[in-house]
């Protein structure tokens, strides 16, 4: 019953917003452009990104600046979503957006501790500056693990940073920290979704469950191909949730010797086909196959139900994928790739 009051307003709003999203034709037009400036002009004049690009209009456009503004537009949708949501959904959506904060945090750790490229941070962080609990200036000026810890001490994942502090000093390896951050993100998301109604959970699994499945497959494939980790270690590192793969299958997958044999351990046919195709792909852009799979699912889901969380999730994912495609195109233009090659990198391009 509650769902009857919870969703219609937001879903109607999302329907309206979805209709403004970029059409196939827009992507085609974008690909055919020749410079970043032209891409900017196209987005500024013809799409709903207009208002997000306003503050850099009239200047010389740099790729990074353009990308930053586009990415931020995605993050800003949190504000308007919040206006329409009841408190438990608000919690969920708020946590959903934490994935951008975690991405930011990973960038921060890598940049400050490994690469230290100047200005890279302020050009690439999209979400973390929205957090009132931290001092953004101090954050980008930090230069050591301790200083990062100090600035972020109010955040809920400060615990993770503390936990790994000692270990980091010993092996200077961020791998485990990043895995743990992801792990916590998905655990918390799962916990929040456990409160959902059955219908909502169904869609949560269909979208986020699928994503976790595919992430895990991708992970195991990479580990098998490039690293040598024992089965126990693999199982410890992957995200401990599964949707269409069983726990037993995950265990068996962790034990195979040759990455090309992974397919045999999966019983869910669509995943099987997907993995086969991905492994055979000459370009070796593994990730695109999985993203495309989710993208296709979303196209179906987005108009399936009006009284569930499906529209919200589908909208958020589709916005993100649209953005990734736009950015892919901009980068393609910047490095003057031929149109066909750019197309091959797009999530929406059928596999």
């Amino acid at each position, binding site marked *: 019953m509650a769902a009857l009051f919870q969703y219609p307003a937001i879903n109607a709003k999302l329907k309206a917003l979805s209709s403004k999203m970029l059409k196939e034709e827009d992507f085609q037009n974008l690909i055919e452009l020749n410079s970043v400036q032209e891409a900017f002009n196209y987005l500024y004049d013809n799409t709903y990104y207009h208002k997000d690009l306003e503050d850099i209009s009239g200047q010389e456009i740099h790729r990074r600046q353009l990308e930053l503004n586009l990415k931020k537009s995605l993050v800003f949708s949190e504000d308007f979503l919040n206006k329409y949501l009841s408190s438990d959904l608000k919690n969920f959506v708020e946590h959903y957006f934490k994935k951008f904060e975690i991405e930011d945090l990973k960038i921060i750790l890598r940049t400050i501790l490994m690469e230290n490229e100047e200005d890279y941070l302020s050009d690439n962080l999209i979400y973390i500056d929205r957090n009132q609990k931290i001092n953004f200036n*101090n954050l980008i*000026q930090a230069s050591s693990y301790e200083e990062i810890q100090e600035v972020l001490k109010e955040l809920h994942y400060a615990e993770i940073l503390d*936990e*790994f502090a000692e*270990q980091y000093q010993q092996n200077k390896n961020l791998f*485990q920290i990043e895995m*743990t951050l992801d792990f916590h993100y998905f655990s918390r998301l799962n916990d929040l979704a456990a409160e959902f109604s059955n219908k909502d959970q169904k869609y949560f699994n269909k979208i986020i469950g699928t994503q976790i499945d595919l992430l895990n497959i991708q992970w195991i494939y990479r580990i098998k191909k490039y690293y040598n*980790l*024992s*089965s*126990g*270690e693999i*199982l*410890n*590192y992957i995200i*401990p949730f599964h949707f269409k793969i069983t726990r037993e299958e995950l265990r068996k997958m962790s*034990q195979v010797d040759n990455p090309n044999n992974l397919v045999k351990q999966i019983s869910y046919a669509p995943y099987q086909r997907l993995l086969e195709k991905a492994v055979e792909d000459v370009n070796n852009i593994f990730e695109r196959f999985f993203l495309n799979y989710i993208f296709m699912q979303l196209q179906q889901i987005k108009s399936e139900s009006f009284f569930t969380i499906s529209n919200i999730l589908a909208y958020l994912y589709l916005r993100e994928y649209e953005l990734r495609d736009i950015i892919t195109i901009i980068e393609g233009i910047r490095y003057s790739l031929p149109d066909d090659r750019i197309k091959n990198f797009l999530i929406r391009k059928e596999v």
Partner: protein
Amino acid sequence: MKKFQILGLKNKIDLITEEIVKNSQIELLKKEKINKDFKYDQVENFYKPYFNRLNKIMDSLNLDQEIKNINFEQLNKFSLEELEDFINPIEKKINKLERITKKLDAEEKRLNNLIRHVYVMRNIDIELQSLKNLSYVTLIFGSLSQERYKRLIENVTEIPILVLKVNEDQERVWFFTFAKKNYQQKALDILNSVNFNRIELPDRVKEQPKDILNQSRHRLDKIEIIRDQIKLEFKKLKHRYQQHLFEYYRQALIFNRITDVNNSFYGKSDYFFITTGWISEENETEFEKLISNKYPEVLYSSQEVEFAEEEPPTIIENPDWIKSFSSLVKLYGLPKYGEIDPSLFFALSYILLFGIMFGDLGQGLIFVLLGLAVYKNKIKFITDQGIGYILISLGSSSMLFGTFYGSIFGMEDLIPALLIRPMENIMVWLGFTVMIGIFLLIISMIFNLFNSFKNKDYKEAFFSDSGLSGLILYLFLLSNLAAYGLQNSLLIPLPLTLAVVIILLLLIFFKEPLGNLLVGKKFSVDKKISEYLLESIFELFDSALGYLSNTLSFLRVGAFTLNHVGLSMAVIILSEMVSNSAGSLLILIAGNIVIMVLEGVVVGIQILRLEFFEIFSKFYSGSGREFKPLNIE
């Protein structure tokens, strides 16, 4: 409010910022559009790191950073080297102490962990050292969070190792791991992949578990003693450097702020800087004089800005007790520049209406007492003193009207009514409250007249439904109504009356073109005529209805007075139904609490509704922006 611009040579930039910050009544504007030769370049703020370090030192030494009353005297610019020389030794000492503390923490943790492990074996009398050097089996001590331990147990099926839980609490699990020697590395890898916390046995232990336990506990005691000594060291440091620290902190703070301001509000070219902002007129004369005397080579210029072009910020100044009501006004919006701040009017009318609607000597007294408690910080979870002011003023008003009505804790027969008993004169009372409504409405229309004349918005002033035409129409209708009610005849003959009403309505109807005529334009409208006519017809209909509905809306004031009496009667009847006196007293008290909470909230909201909808819509746009002067914080 005037907009000013300062242009000067770059070497004066710090001094000018200092004057602006010191003045603390000037708002600077960010990224104004200025001449394109000026760029908003960022200068590196050399003071920031020092300021942050000083901040950290003050934190470690538990010194309060009071920023409020910083004085700007004797800002002899110290060199950064000098600052470095001052900070460095203190920082080193603090760091050393903190390092020791950290080591102690780690050691303490290690000992506690060890105790947990060894405690399990306290009754075994073998030497632990021998366990460390087994020839076929490796023994690993460690701890993990509960959740990770569960994962480890699930996933550790492949390798021949044995994990034994020895102890646990809510969060963590302590365990032994046995592994064959040739699987030692594998075992460590998998343990590392869940980030386990390894606990090493101390190297030199030769003793049995019991002795290790004793030894560890002894060492924990020692750690406590060292901790006390460190605390003492900190106190010494604080005592020794306090004064100097404050002085350096003050200066670093000011220079840090100055550089920050320079970076965010100033346009710079090769040799010049430029900045713009808002300043109040009374403040300006002095500030301009100061700048031109002290810095003759800095150019200061200012101008009044046409209101339509740019909206100047509004300075909002009110005494404390009104400020608390201001926060309610802010829910609606801030006054636009040049618009009357309705806070005082709002506060007075709110208090008056609350008293009328909720007149009760006893309950009012309780509100006052609650308010006093809040004001004196006696109630912990309400820290906002403003709530205290509101409660006190509303309570007093309620008490006053309570004596007028002769009502105390809902009982109407204990004290005599000074003025009237509303329940016994219902129609008179309702009429009276409508009169109050009419009075408030007229005042708000007069406010609107005042606002529009002040802003030279003559269209609004003369022809709008809450402007002059509207006011005359409203008064005319009211007086006719009154005359008809009292003497059964109109003031002037019916045809004339109708003519007057129609003329006034027509004036309102043609507000747009008439307004244009006033400012010297043609008698025409900007929109399509058909569109305008349609819109105006509806608007006219709405305003005509509005006069009636807005007025009658104030009936609710009287209705709630009666409602209050009614609810009280219900409580009293209930209490009389109970035979024993303790029970009836209990019901009386409970009933009074219910009435106070329930009615208090409902009345509060109803008044807010009256204020926002009936009164504010007549004269208050609430579309302003607050003046935010630059200061040291």
